[in-house]
């Protein structure tokens, strides 16, 4: 009897959680802060600096959404999450959105009941080799010893890749990225394989980064993107289109430098006008005012500027745009039309 009462109370609490989560936009506005889940620290993607200010590629998405909804890119409560706590934090309503280099997979989208609103970084598994090895393609790695994290999808991808190309390899199992870094530098393996962005940041920490290269082959798909809970599509739309506004801004040539000028009066390009709210009523359709996208872009610039500032080729991480270039530049970053 007592047990049923207890379970009943839990159910009611659960229902209350579900019901109040339905209008995330109202909650965020009432709170005056966006609760955004980020990683506890990943070079270039999210980390607090010496003054405790969060910076990074994923952080920029949070700030853009906060600027679009609340008008202030700093109105964000960054909630650090680990790989283990991130999904429960989002599902329980502790955070409004998660921007934490999370791979978009079938089961996460469906079974875990989340909505991935887009892909802000197309990652994939790559290979790091010393220049002295004289290898320019992963297909030349026949007979190589490979440092590989055990129990991950990277292990399976590696086996598939080598079998498909009919070459052999010898795995050196490791547990963590730090261990992989040490083993690779100590010469325990010819090449180290994990996600390409991870390889880049690992290489950036080396004493002589230029002695090592990341091979051009990418052998798996790891689309990383921000996500929200199932069930509040209006909120999902806001996050999705804020992100696409950043991507479209780069395509249209809207930068943090010229946005003031472009938004002052309607210009010749009608799509720019619609994005910046000088023409049409796009903002009202997602429950915001017409300058939402202008504010989102003003915070950190367009997608390309955010990329260059945090993880681009001029930073120590030095990632090339590759797949993440605009579709007009040979990449697959492609924002649907704003109309």
């Amino acid at each position, binding site marked *: 009897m007592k047990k049923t009462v207890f379970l009943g109370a839990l159910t009611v609490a659960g229902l209350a959680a579900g019901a109040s989560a339905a209008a995330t936009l109202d909650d965020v506005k009432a709170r005056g802060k966006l609760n955004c889940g980020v990683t*506890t*620290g990943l070079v270039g993607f999210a*980390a607090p600096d010496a003054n*405790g200010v969060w910076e990074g590629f994923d952080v920029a998405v949070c700030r853009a959404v906060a600027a679009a909804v609340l008008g202030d890119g700093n109105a964000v*409560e960054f909630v650090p999450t*680990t790989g*283990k706590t991130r999904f429960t934090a989002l*599902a*329980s*309503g502790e955070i409004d959105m998660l921007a934490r280099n999370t791979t978009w997979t079938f089961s996460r989208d469906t079974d875990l009941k989340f909505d991935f609103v887009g892909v802000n970084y197309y990652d994939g598994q790559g290979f790091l080799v010393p220049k002295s090895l004289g290898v320019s393609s992963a297909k030349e790695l026949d007979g190589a010893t490979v440092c590989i994290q055990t129990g991950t999808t990277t292990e399976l991808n590696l086996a598939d890749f080598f079998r498909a190309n009919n070459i052999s390899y010898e795995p050196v199992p490791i547990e963590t990225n730090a261990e992989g870094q040490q083993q690779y530098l100590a010469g325990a393996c010819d090449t180290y394989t994990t996600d390409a962005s991870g390889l880049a940041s690992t290489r950036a920490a080396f004493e002589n980064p230029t002695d090592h290269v990341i091979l051009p082959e990418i052998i798996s798909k790891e689309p990383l993107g921000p996500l929200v809970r199932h069930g509040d599509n209006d909120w999902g739309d806001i996050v999705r289109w804020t992100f696409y506004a950043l991507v479209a801004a780069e395509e249209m040539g809207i930068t943090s430098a010229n946005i003031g000028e472009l938004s002052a009066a309607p210009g010749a390009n009608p799509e720019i006008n619609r994005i910046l709210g000088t023409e049409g009523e796009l903002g009202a359709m997602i429950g915001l005012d017409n300058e939402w996208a202008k504010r989102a872009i003003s915070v950190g610039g367009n997608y390309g500027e955010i990329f260059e500032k945090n993880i681009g080729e001029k930073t120590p991480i030095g990632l090339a745009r590759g797949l993440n270039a605009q579709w007009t530049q040979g990449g697959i970053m492609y924002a649907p039309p704003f109309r």
Partner: protein
Amino acid sequence: MSRDQFAFVRKHMLPEAPPPATQTGAIKWLRENLFSSPGNALLTIVSAYVVFQIVISATPWFLNGVWDSPSLSACREILDGKTGACFAVLSERWNQLLFGFKYPSELYWRPGLAFLLLFIAAAPVLFGKIFPRKMLIFTGLYPFVAYWLIWGGSLMVPIFALLGVLVGAFVYRRMVTVNAGIAVIVAFVAALVFWILSGYVTAPMENVLAIEAVASRDMGGFMINLMLGVVCVSLSLPLGILLALGRQSSMPIIKWICVVFIEFIRGVPLITLLFVANVVLAYFLPPGTNFDLILRVIIMITMFSSAYIAEVIRGGLAALPRGQYEAADSLGLDYAQAMQLIILPQALKISIPGIVNVAVGLFKDTTLVSVISMFDIVGMIRGPILASSEWNGVYWELFGFACVLFFITCYGISQYSQWLERQLRTDHR
């Protein structure tokens, strides 16, 4: 036989000669302890060689250490190929390592002061014979003072919390003549009612005597480890005693509650309890309820360590000869008096090494909170500091620093417990 038949006769006593060189001082010590047999001599030489190698290779790393540099790459430029540590990460991120990255920097003096006051508060408890008993009043006030200093906010909150404790104590005094067990329960309920009611009073007085408030989310660094360690050890000791006594109780319900609690908690890993505190509770509590994360973690760690301490104390209780219990009964003491005056002082003395063992282990286990995304010192190192583009790749210096902090604290605890054991030794061994 006349005297001159002898070539030499000693006329004086010889002065005392010093013992042979092999039987005294350093040489004797060396012979006895390091070179007493060929096998030991060999081991000594090999170990000396290993120690020498370690010192030789580690010394330049320490001596060439760079203390002032903005980033790891700058460090490497300064070292210019030489072996050397980059201690600059410690000096640049010193405050973050101690206080976390969000605690307002102009308020660092508050947790610092709370830390200093901790020694004053702990002194009369730890060294009862040396410090006056009146200092215990400050010890009683300390939790409220420390809470106010670290979290800030209105002074009314800790004051009303203190008043609640006083109400409980008053009720207990009144009721204890009736029955000690009932008195404890009634006093607890009275304090609880007072706290709930005072919530309505303090809410509108948010700004009365207020200092700047700091949210639990903003705390981090070694401060969290110390807070969790101190609070959980001091809470779990009395709880553990109650559980141990409850487990030996002749009242079946109390006995079974204690047995089930202890066995359940001991059968579950601490990290699971922490995940429950962080993740599962978030599902059960209605959204918007602000059930403080640090409070949740404190409850879980306290439950965990009190179960262990209960078993340690049960060992102490079991070690007492039955005659002690019978002697207490024959003097006409009731249960509370017998426990307080005869059984517990002896049982606790036996349990000291075990309790200290649990306390040291608990203090080190506080680093586990880094897996539930709290930024204790290990969380700070693994997360923000190693993930910054300046310091990515500095491992030895940071983790070495964390080791030093923990070693100092744990070694201090262990030395204190040994001193205490010597103080309490009453037998003639």
